[in-house]
């Protein structure tokens, strides 16, 4: 540029010199004496030469001016292109760093106006509603109510639409070089003139084949958008569309994630994610609660087997293996230990988690606290057992009542035909049945007291040896056909017990021993000291108790109906009463048995340390 100006200056000064020369020549024609140079004024050749030179110089000057104008335009164009390029760069930066969509669009418009030097820019979206509104989202620059005057929809075909809508509908940019003369822009032209928009261009915003909207840019001069500038702006609008798509994807992704997290944490079942070795990697809030922890930190990194009781670990391990083989395992029940030591029954279903290639990546489990369900089941069971107990009690009451009713009506109806022996037998039966009834009622009362927590002992200092000997002596009378043997200590320590209740225990154990033994086998009662306790045992050589039943035999409700069908007489309440009595003395009761060999029932009472060894 400078060179051009210098050239121009040079040629102008050359021209001036020549002109001056010519003037001087004219003067010398009138008064030759004024110049010191002697030239022939008739030299037409010289005149022609000068004129030729002048016209050449004038031509050159014109060319130079044209060149200057051209260069200037180029410079301006370059300047504008440079601005467009800077706009593109700046906008790319914005797209890369954008956090949310509306901020992105706002900044883009501001940059187009601020950096690009355009008068006005706006972005609108085609909305998928009934009216097919083309809604403006953001704008920057000189607006002054222009957008409000538009009220655009994208219904119908692109012909005759506003350039923004036309670009949106066609997917191609739409250029209005002169808002004053361009026929396509006639409907909006007066408004555009008011706002000083001489030319405009609208670019579609399209991403992944989806039309979003359009970016429209206005300039103050007509024909402001040159071809290469348009190309840069196309690139810019593509980048904006891409930026919007990325942000929308990210938002959708985040929303899905938030939704999943919300679902994850709001289910009442505990969800646990673990690796293939059972190490916990994630849990939801319910799982934390079920496992009895305060926060996730306490659980993460723990093995799932740490949470399950030792007894159930093998089962859990087995089920985990099955999950890995079969893909899922449902409805396993375990007991679990909470950090406070409490035991909770749980139900757990496990499924395999796979990575995108389909390889096992971990295990997800759904855990449910089934305490309530278990309780409900227990209540149901108790209810059922109570019903059974009631029908059993009714049966037990009816049997002695049948004796009483039968023999008394027999005595009434046939007194004259019954000999004295039969009469006496009848009365004895009535008497025994009455005793049975009384005993039954006592048992039931004791049990109900036990249930109501009203079971009280009447403890007195007792000569234990005497108590045992008396009890056994009575049993021998009761069972004259059985061999009852006795192996007692020589010296019994002083005991503070409820003698009547202890007799009840011994009686009950003896009754059972006799009931389940053959007549020619021995029933042995032993008493010994050991470990600060007095231990009494009653052994028989009867049919014995299967191992799987022995732990339940002291439970009052234990399979009553089954017991009743095998053991027609007696409610099976005796052993549970024995247990209650012994435990009320702070003692313990247990049984050892071998099927076919016989059973031994033990009960142990703690010895009073102060009086231990003293004879009563």
């Amino acid at each position: 540029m400078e060179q051009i100006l210098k050239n121009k200056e040079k040629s102008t000064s050359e021209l001036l010199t020549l002109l001056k020369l010519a003037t001087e020549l004219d003067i010398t024609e009138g008064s030759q004496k004024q110049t010191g140079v002697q030239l022939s004024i008739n030299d037409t050749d010289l005149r022609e030469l000068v004129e030729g030179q002048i016209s050449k110089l004038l031509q050159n000057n014109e060319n130079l001016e044209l060149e200057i104008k051209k260069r200037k335009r180029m410079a301006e164009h370059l300047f504008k292109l440079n601005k467009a390029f800077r706009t593109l760069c700046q906008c790319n930066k914005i797209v890369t760093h954008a956090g949310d969509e509306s901020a992105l669009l706002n900044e883009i418009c501001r940059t187009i106006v601020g950096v690009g030097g355009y008068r006005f820019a706006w972005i609108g979206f085609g909305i998928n509603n009934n009216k097919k509104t083309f809604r403006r989202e953001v704008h920057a620059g000189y607006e002054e109510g222009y957008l409000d005057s538009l009220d655009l929809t994208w219904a119908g075909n692109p012909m005759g639409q506003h350039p923004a809508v036309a670009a949106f509908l066609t997917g191609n940019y739409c250029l209005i070089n002169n808002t004053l003369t361009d026929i396509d822009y006639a409907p909006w032209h007066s408004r555009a003139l008011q706002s000083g928009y001489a030319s405009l261009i609208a670019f579609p915003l399209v991403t992944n084949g989806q039309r979003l909207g359009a970016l429209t840019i206005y300039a103050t001069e007509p024909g402001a958008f040159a071809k290469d500038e348009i190309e840069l702006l196309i690139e810019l609008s593509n980048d904006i569309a891409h930026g919007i798509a990325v942000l929308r994807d990210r938002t959708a992704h985040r929303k899905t994630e938030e939704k999943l997290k919300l679902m994850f944490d709001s289910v009442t079942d505990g969800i646990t994610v673990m690796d293939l070795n059972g190490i916990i990697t994630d849990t939801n809030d319910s799982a934390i609660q079920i496992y009895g922890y305060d926060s996730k930190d306490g659980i993460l990194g723990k093995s799932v087997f740490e949470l399950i009781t030792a007894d159930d670990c093998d089962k859990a391990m087995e089920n985990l293996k099955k999950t890995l083989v079969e893909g899922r395992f449902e409805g396993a029940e375990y007991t679990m230990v909470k950090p406070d030591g409490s035991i909770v029954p749980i139900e757990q279903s496990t499924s395999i988690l796979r990575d995108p290639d389909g390889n096992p990546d971990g295990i997800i489990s759904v855990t449910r606290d089934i305490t309530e369900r278990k309780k409900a089941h227990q209540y149901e069971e108790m209810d059922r057992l109570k019903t059974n107990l009631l029908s059993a009690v009714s049966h037990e009451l009816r049997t002695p009542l049948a004796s009483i009713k039968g023999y008394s009506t027999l005595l009434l109806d046939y007194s004259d035909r019954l000999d004295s022996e039969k009469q006496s037998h009848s009365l004895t039966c009535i008497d025994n049945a009455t005793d049975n009834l009384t005993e039954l009622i006592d048992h039931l009362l004791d049990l109900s007291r036990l249930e109501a927590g009203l079971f009280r002992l009447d403890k007195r200092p007792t000569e234990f040896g005497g108590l045992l000997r008396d009890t056994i002596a009575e049993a021998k009378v009761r069972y004259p056909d059985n061999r009852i043997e006795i192996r007692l200590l020589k010296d019994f320590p002083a005991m503070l017990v409820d003698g009547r209740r202890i007799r009840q225990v011994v009686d009950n154990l003896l009754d059972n021993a006799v009931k389940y033994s053959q007549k020619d086998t021995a029933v042995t009662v032993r008493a010994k000291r050991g470990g600060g306790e007095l231990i009494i045992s009653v052994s028989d050589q009867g049919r014995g108790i299967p191992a799987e039943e022995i732990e339940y035999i002291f439970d009052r409700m234990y399979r009553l109906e089954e017991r009743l069908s095998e053991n027609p007489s007696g409610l099976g309440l005796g052993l549970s009463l024995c247990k209650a009595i012994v435990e009320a003395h702070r003692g313990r009761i247990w049984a050892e048995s071998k099927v076919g060999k016989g059973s031994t029932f033990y009960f142990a009472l703690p010895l009073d340390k102060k009086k231990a060894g003293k004879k009563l």
Partner: protein
Amino acid sequence: MTLQSEKINVLVIEDEPDIQTFVVWLLALEGYEVGAASTGEHGLEMARAGGANLMLLDLRLPGRDGWSVLAEMKRDTKLADIPVVIFSASAAVPQKEKALGMGAVDYLVKPLSAEKLRKCIKRALAS
């Protein structure tokens, strides 16, 4: 061996000794020939030995219970004609219906007076 008398023969299956004795005495006083068993097995043996005109059967028996005895009585064609009266300490209605459904002619609930038992035996024999 032929029957020595024209007496009606009643077979009592009852495991409670006192109740068995009461029933046996009553029936004897009423002029029936009475046989008694304490177990289901023994009762069936006696029934198969012949001569019984009526069976009085307790339901809750050690070993083979009354239900099984009743089923066997009705299954065995030689025994099916002997009327069976159930004599039980269970007053439950479903039990009674079940027993009658299985072919028992009557269902008596303990306790029972001498008079009721008498009438019932007569009714059962008449049917």
